[in-house]
């Protein structure tokens, strides 16, 4: 069966060049990057080259890049590395769970008195209002953590404005850029952030590696204790193949921007989106907001999104809805709910997310499949039939 993958916000396939770059570090270059001998020197050099590549992608210094086990660890390191008992933290209602649940934990258990957390709401387009962030700042505010691009809708937040507000108030600003990296150009100085998270497997690198940008001079308490790896900000022997893969993926992302891949991807996404919105009783989530070029999130009224995802998967198209819980069942999206979407529409929403490997034929495949499948689901939907009668 032909299979088309349009769920690149969940993970992306490792590009062949990335796999090639990683391969020697599973074999002949096996050294521990902390060792003083030849083997260690070889892998140390590879790790530092990768750090430079990541720094180039983010517009920062190599020394400001801390490698982690992924986006979640980097987000947690930013939150737990800065917030202390009695501090106030500002975040948004649409963050990824890696930030949201870290903040919840902060409010509940950390320290003797815990931290206070303010959750900034979003408007119907899914945007945080920087003025809300400014108003939420208190004398004891330590950290603002607001994402760059949302994983479900692709909506890009006004992070540069928030960065300015944070700087004026002398508050640390972290942004989760996992879904923005490789899709839109990132410059930590233009954003004005002190910390920024990226993940390897969302940019066609391997799973199990990520990085946190930490602005020079930021006093970050580590979460893991052990050796003095990563300038004592993250103990543990480096995941050399993973780091090399992330570095290569960062290089490829930079050359992609130079070629204009992002504009091409936006055109493909727009084509898909336009055609899907031709289907009766549909709508775009995040309409009117700036978005990354690869994501579109659409509701199909009277549809059970879960059933649509399964029906499409059985026909070879991989897309997603909401966030999967531990059993694999789908839970109502906290992002769409926070945007004020009706619960039935939140459950009827599907995310299509493109990757570098997708071809125009992939889009055609989706467009041949989705309208027909939506039609079949609606024919069997008691809610749709009821609404059709009343029309």
């Amino acid at each position, binding site marked *: 069966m032909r299979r088309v993958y349009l769920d690149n916000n969940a993970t992306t396939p490792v590009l062949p060049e990335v796999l090639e770059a990683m391969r020697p570090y599973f074999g002949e270059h096996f050294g521990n990057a902390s060792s003083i001998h030849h083997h260690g020197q070889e892998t140390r050099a590879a790790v530092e080259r990768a750090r430079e590549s990541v720094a180039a992608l983010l517009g920062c210094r190599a020394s400001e890049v801390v490698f982690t086990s992924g986006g979640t660890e980097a987000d947690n390191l930013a939150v737990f590395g800065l917030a202390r008992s009695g501090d106030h933290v500002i975040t948004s209602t649409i963050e990824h769970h890696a930030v949201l649940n870290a903040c919840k934990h902060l409010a509940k258990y950390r320290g003797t008195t815990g931290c206070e957390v303010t959750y900034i709401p979003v408007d119907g387009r899914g945007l945080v209002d920087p003025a809300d962030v400014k108003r939420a700042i208190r004398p004891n505010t330590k950290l603002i953590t607001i994402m760059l691009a949302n994983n479900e809708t692709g909506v890009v937040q006004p992070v540069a404005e928030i960065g300015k507000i944070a700087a004026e108030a002398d508050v640390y600003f972290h942004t989760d850029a996992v879904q923005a990296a490789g899709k839109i150009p990132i410059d930590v100085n233009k954003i004005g952030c002190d910390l920024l998270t990226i993940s390897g497997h969302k940019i066609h690198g391997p799973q199990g590696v990520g990085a946190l940008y930490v602005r020079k001079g930021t006093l970050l308490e580590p979460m893991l204790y052990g050796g003095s790896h990563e300038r004592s900000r993250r103990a543990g022997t480096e995941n050399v193949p993973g780091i090399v893969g992330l570095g290569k993926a960062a290089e490829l992302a930079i050359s992609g921007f130079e070629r204009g891949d992002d504009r091409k991807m936006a055109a493909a996404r727009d084509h898909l989106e336009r055609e899907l919105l031709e289907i009766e009783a549909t709508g775009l989530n995040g309409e009117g907001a700036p978005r990354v070029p690869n994501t579109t999130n659409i509701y199909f009224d009277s549809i059970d999104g*879960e059933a649509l995802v*399964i029906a499409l*998967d*059985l026909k070879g198209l991989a897309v997603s809805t909401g966030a999967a819980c531990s*059993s*694999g*069942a789908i839970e109502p999206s906290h992002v769409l709910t926070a945007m004020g979407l009706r619960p039935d529409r939140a459950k009827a929403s599907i995310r299509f997310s493109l990757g570098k490997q997708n071809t125009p034929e992939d889009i055609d495949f989706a467009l041949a499949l989705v309208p027909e499948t939506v039609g079949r*689901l609606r024919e069997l*939907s008691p809610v749709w039939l009821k609404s059709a009668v009343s029309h």
Partner: protein
Amino acid sequence: MSGGVDSSAVAAMLRAEGRNVIGLTMQLWNQRRLAGHEGMPESVQGRCCSIDDVYDARRVAETLGIPYYVVNHEERFERDVVRPFVEEYLAGRTPIPCSLCNNHLKFDQLLVVARQIGADQIATGHYAQVVFDEQLNRWLLKRSVDKSKDQTYFLFGLTQAQLSRTLFPLGGMTKPEVRELARKHSLVIAEKPDSQEICFVPGGDYKRFLEAYLTEQGDKPTEIAGEMVTTDGKVIGEHAGVHNFTIGQRKGLGVATGSPLYVIQIKNDTRQVVVGKDEELYSRTLRARRVNFISTSELREPMRVAVKIRHKHQPAPAIIESAGPDEVRVTFDEPQRALTPGQAAVFYDGDIVVGGGWIENSTQ
């Protein structure tokens, strides 16, 4: 697929027949929701929708090489099964959540999902049989060959449309045969013990579950205490809520008398629990409401059947006759012990399920 032996064996059988099989597990209840509430254990103990069971089902699907998905029906389950379960107890009745789940979830919403994703039928691990009768032009529900496992009591609410799209592949098998089949297919769950309890009530302690759920919902009734009275109206004590009792209950009544006392009746309007001697528990008639007929479309004249009034009850000979729309009056040949409102009365003609309904409170 629950991750248990029965539904796993069904998947294996249908796959072996060369059918196109899709595995589905229903996520119905979040066990962690009430953990730590009102004396509920901190750690999650219940079997329902546990990660382990989903893992088992997924492993079975993988072994069989079939696509597999978990579908979330928590909202509907709470609305159509958990809430009515709680409300029935608060109204002094003894509910059967499994029947509600079959009627509203498995053979309704799950069937819709199954058809939407391209399936024609759903198959479950229930011990029951479905056959089409040409003469009657109806789908019949019949007891399973393994009488000790028969689950038709919980399936009396199925409609003709539902039965026409249902497969019960285990209906002709015994439990040991099912286990053997699971072993033959090298399914990891072949030796997994059977589950007995209500899936969403950890440890079977429904009272603790009610307390925790009502507290979580913030609608714990304030006045639930009532009187304990004898059949001749004498007040002999107090009780802490009608939900603590079921008809025929002897233990935990909180009153001490010379001879053993049993709960005879629960009066919801006055919150009185009526107790009496064992012989006072017997009655010959009952009314069944919201009746569903399977082997016939309606009851034109009185019919001789055998009626089962609880899952482990031996069906007793009786006459059923219509008592209004969707209502049936049941008259047993011999008085039956502990007719319990909230339980089902299921009518059998031999192995064939004629239909069934919900036992009504005799005071209402």
